[in-house]
Structure formats: C-alpha cells, structure tokens
C-alpha cells in the first residue's frame, strides 16, 4: 500500500478532543493542502503525522509501514516549520546536512546532497552564511533544503509562507509548486490561506473543529461544497447565505418568489433553509427596481474590483463583487440580480442539497 493512510486517528488533550476520528488517504506524488480556520486542528494533525504529537487512537501508515509508533526521525518524513527553525549557530551548509551528519552519512554523500539541494533552491552562494545574515525568503529556502537532503518519503509544511511578505509569498508559492513537480514528492501543506490552498493543491482537505469537512480538488470544493462551512470558507469575500422558503416548487426570498427549484434534487429540496450565493453572482442594478431591493452600506474599491456591502429590504447583510470601479455610494437604494445557476442550497443541518443540473 503506497501513500499515506490515516485511519480513525483521534487526539485528545485531557477531555478536549482536538482531532475527531480522521480518515484520509494520500496518493504518492500528491500535493495535499490542509486548510481551515485557526484552531481547527490542521497543524496538530500534521504534527501527529510527523511524530511530534502522539495520537490518542487510530493508526497511520506510510508506504506500507505503520509509522504512528515510530520516533519522528524513523518515519522518513521531513517538516518545514512556520518559523523555519534553523540552527542559528550553524551556517547554511551545516544546517542542511545536520541530519546527514547525525546519521553518519559519508562526507562525499553529504557534500553531493547539499550541493544538489542548494542549486535547486538557488542557495549555492550562501552556503557559508549564518541564518542571521539571510533574508526571510532565503531562510525559508534553507529550511526546505534541509528537508530535501534527507530524501523523505513525505514532506510536511506547516504554514511555511505565513511569515513572508505578500510579494515574496506569491513567488515562493510558485517555486514550491515547481519543486514538488521536480521532486515528484508527496507533500502535505498546512495553511489558513485559501489562496495558497486553491492555487497549490492537487486536493484540499478542509478541516473544522478537528473534523474533516470535505476532501477534493480545489475547483470541486469551490463549485460543489458539501456543506455551508466549506462553501463559506472558500472564496473571498465569503459566500452570502440568505434564508429561503420552498413552496410549490419555487424558492422564496423575503416572501418573494425568486426561482423555481428544478435544478436541485427534488427529494431533498423541501428541506432547504438557506441559499448560498457568491458575491460575484450578485449584480447591482442601479437604476432598475427589479429583483431584490437593498441599500448600500459600505463600498470598498480595490482598483480591479469593487466590494459593495448591502443591506437587503428583508434585513440580510450581503456582499456583491463587481469588476472595475462601481459607482455605488453608501445610502444608495439599488436592485439586486442574483445568478442562481451558481447558487447552493443548504438544509437545517447546513448540509448542501445536491444540484441535478450540470454545474462547471
């Protein structure tokens, strides 16, 4: 059995369950991103795979070996920390080959490995420098290099880019994705940044409250969220949720008929409690008085986009995103057009009601 297999893994600190029976299979060569809000257990789960936290129950297998009982060093995994965790008294070369030296690797092998990793990461000129003399991005590359020279079967990344500034983060994102392709390595990457998750992952694992909410390819999750949490977590600004009533095959918002419900599974659609509409699927009609009525409460102009915050006549707070610079001003009374072809219905337990029509 190749790849990583996590079976019914739980973790509790005293009476608090931080990881609740997680099952997960990761294929060799896959780039998987754990994403979720602070405290959702994503880092804890990663640390349990690394062996830095014990597991309370369940088992973890890597390429056919059970690893959850092994010492961290024996698991053939490596980890890159958010804070880099470089040894400040060692230079770049010593930092990178520390693990090899401990394992008494011959000198030629150590030199070869460090040289290869350094050239892959553009660190060749910096090998004699101490971490204190490096920039944040260079330090992060040294931390990655330290992982590479050990040839682990699994790379773990714990929010590795969150200490970098936005421009460097974007650059490192692309570099990491390239590195993963070059090495063909299996990687698990923890982040709370949905842009990193959406752009880098083969598959995303959305975690919430120690539970896996949904696993899937980035666009699958975006277009077919399994529940309200996933729908709200992916996409920025976050999805709008509006209470609805279903009557005679039609969906009513604030007492007005909005759309017929033939697009959803007819056996379940009667349970619908909320409709989720992404901000980009709400367009504003400044002159017309068609559709939903709303007043503009705030406007954020980002240059390429405008976020318009609205208060509907029914008292719901909504956000609309339009391209370019919108002419909205706070206090304007406007009409709203909702594009229901990209919308999602959720029942009273926040579970998505499947659509039966084809969505992208």
């Amino acid at each position, binding site marked *: 059995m190749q790849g990583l297999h996590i079976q019914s893994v739980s973790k509790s600190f005293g009476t608090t369950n931080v990881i609740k029976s997680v099952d997960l299979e990761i294929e060799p060569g896959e780039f998987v991103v754990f994403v979720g809000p602070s405290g959702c257990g994503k880092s804890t789960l990663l640390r349990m795979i*690394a*062996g*830095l936290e014990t597991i309370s129950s369940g088992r973890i297998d890597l390429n056919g070996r059970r690893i959850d009982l092994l*010492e*961290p*060093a024996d698991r053939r*995994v*490596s*980890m890159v*920390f958010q*804070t*880099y*965790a*470089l*040894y*400040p*008294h060692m230079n770049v070369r010593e930092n990178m080959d*520390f*693990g090899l030296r*401990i*394992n008494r690797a011959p000198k030629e092998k150590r030199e070869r490995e460090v040289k290869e990793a350094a050239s892959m990461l553009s660190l060749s000129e910096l090998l004699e420098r*101490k*971490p*204190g*003399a*490096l920039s*944040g991005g260079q*330090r992060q590359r040294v931390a990655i290099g*330290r992982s590479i020279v*050990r040839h682990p079967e699994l790379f773990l990344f714990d929010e590795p880019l969150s*200490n970098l500034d936005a421009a460097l983060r974007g650059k490192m994102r692309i570099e990491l994705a390239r590195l993963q392709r070059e090495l063909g390595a299996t990687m698990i990457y923890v982040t709370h940044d949905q842009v990193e998750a959406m752009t880098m992952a083969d598959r995303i694992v959305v975690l919430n409250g120690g539970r896996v909410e949904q696993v899937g390819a980035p666009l699958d999750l975006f277009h077919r969220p399994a529940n309200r949490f996933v729908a709200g977590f992916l996409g920025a600004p976050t999805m709008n949720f509006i209470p609805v009533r279903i009557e005679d095959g039609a969906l009513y918002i604030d007492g007005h008929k909005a759309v017929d419900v033939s697009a959803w599974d007819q056996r379940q659609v009667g349970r619908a409690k909320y409709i989720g509409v992404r901000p980009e699927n709400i367009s504003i009609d400044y002159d017309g008085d068609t559709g939903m009525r709303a007043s503009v409460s705030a406007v954020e102009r980002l240059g390429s986009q405008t976020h318009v915050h609205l208060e509907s006549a029914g008292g719901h707070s909504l956000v609309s995103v339009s391209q370019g610079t919108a002419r909205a001003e706070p206090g304007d009374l406007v009409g709203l057009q909702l594009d229901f072809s990209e919308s999602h219905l959720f029942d009273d337990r926040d579970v998505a009601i499947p659509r039966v029509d084809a969505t992208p």
Partner: protein
Amino acid sequence: MRPSWTHVPLSLIAVAALAPSVFMVVTSFRNLEDYAADKVAWPESPGLSNYVSALVEHPFVKWGFNSLLLTAGSVLLSTIVAVLAAYALARMRFAGRSVILGVSTSLMVVPPVTMIVPLFVLYTQLGLINTFGGTILIYAGLITPFGVFLLTTFFRTLPDELFEAARLDGAGSFRILTNVVLPLSLPALLSLIVVNALYVWNDLLIAIIFLQDDSRRTLMAGISVFQGRYNNNVPLTMAGLTLASVPMLILYVAFQRYFIRGLMAGAVK
C-alpha cells in the same frame, strides 16, 4: 545627548566603586615605612618588593594553585550537574518536575554559614576534612542551585521548533543538548561560570574551616593569615590581593566577548 549633569552622580558612583581597587594596586607598590607614615598616598619610590616577597618568601604560588584546583573542580562539577538538571527540568515532562525545581531554587536562600557545623561534623566522621575532593563537593553543592535556576530559565526561552527540527533530523536528547542547546546557551553558560568561579575563588569561610592544613590553604585563606602572622603588613597583603585578582580579571575579559546579545538572531522568524 543627555545633559551632562546626569554624569555627575554616575561619576561619583564609579569613583566609589573603583576606589578600593585603586587603593589596593597603589598600596601594593609602596613600602611598609611609607605606608606607616601616610596610609593614603601615591608611592614615593614605587617598587615590586612586595610582589617579590609574596611570590618568593611566601607560598603564594602554592596557594594560587590550590585555589585554581578548587575553583576549576567545583565550577566544572557544578556546571555539568546544572546543565543536565536544567535540560531535564526545562525540556522533559516528568512527575515532580516543578517540585524539584522549587526545592533546588529554594536552596539558594540557605546561608552557607548555617551548614558549617553539621558539615564539619559529617566531614570529620567521613575523613574528608583537609581534602580537596571534599571541599570541591561543598562548593559545587553551594553554587549548583543557582546554576540550575539560571539555566532552566534560559533553556525554556529556546524555541520549541529547534528541538522538534533536531528530533526530526534524528538527534537524541543528548545530541540536542550538545549540538543545539549548549552552543546557543554560551552567553548564559559563561556568565554562570564567571559568577561561580568568582564566588569560589573569593570564598574564605569554607576554605579556612575545611582546609586547615598549611599546604592546602587557598589564596584568600593564605592572604588572611598574612595579617596575623606578619604584623599586619598591609602593602604585602595588597600585593597578594592584586595577584589574586589577576586570574579572575583574565577570566572575565576572556569571556566578555561572549556576553553579547543576538546570538539567537536568525533562529526563528
């Protein structure tokens, strides 16, 4: 720039702090007659006769060697014990950890004087009076609690990720201690060594009670008997004290460059 008047009290304090040392060095170059005539004065004909006398006529070198042995032995023993204890207390989880640290720390407030009589009785029974080994044990026992306290506090400030990274690299606890913790703790460790060495080197109480044999006297004990035996020859005593200060001065100057901040720069963030 601060206004210059703040320098006045600071200068006064500096003078007050340095005056005894200046007096010691100046007086050591004067002869006994001059000193008897005027206690505080610059030497009229400065000479090294007191130094020659201390080094040649008195067993000064022998005493210095004894002091060195005691200081090195007890500081070495104490540092090894304190490093191992502090590493366990700061970085390992076990039952009774905080109790041990609490007890060890509370030992710092016990005045050595209160332990002299019971220790003396015990050492007499064990035959450890007048032995360097026995005295080293006492000194090491006295200075270790401070070492454990200081190093535990310091080790706790080292970032957890460094330990985790080292574990993932395959380092065991002892390897992490020697290859990661100790190099990063050099400033704390060297401060501790200097402070403890000063204490042992300058101690009179224990040296005079537990090492009574003339051949085992330490510098401080030896200098103190100068006065009684040689009619209170102050310039000679000052020459002895000046000589006794030199090793500690060297130790301090040698380690001073390690007392720099920023050794942790670049570890995290």
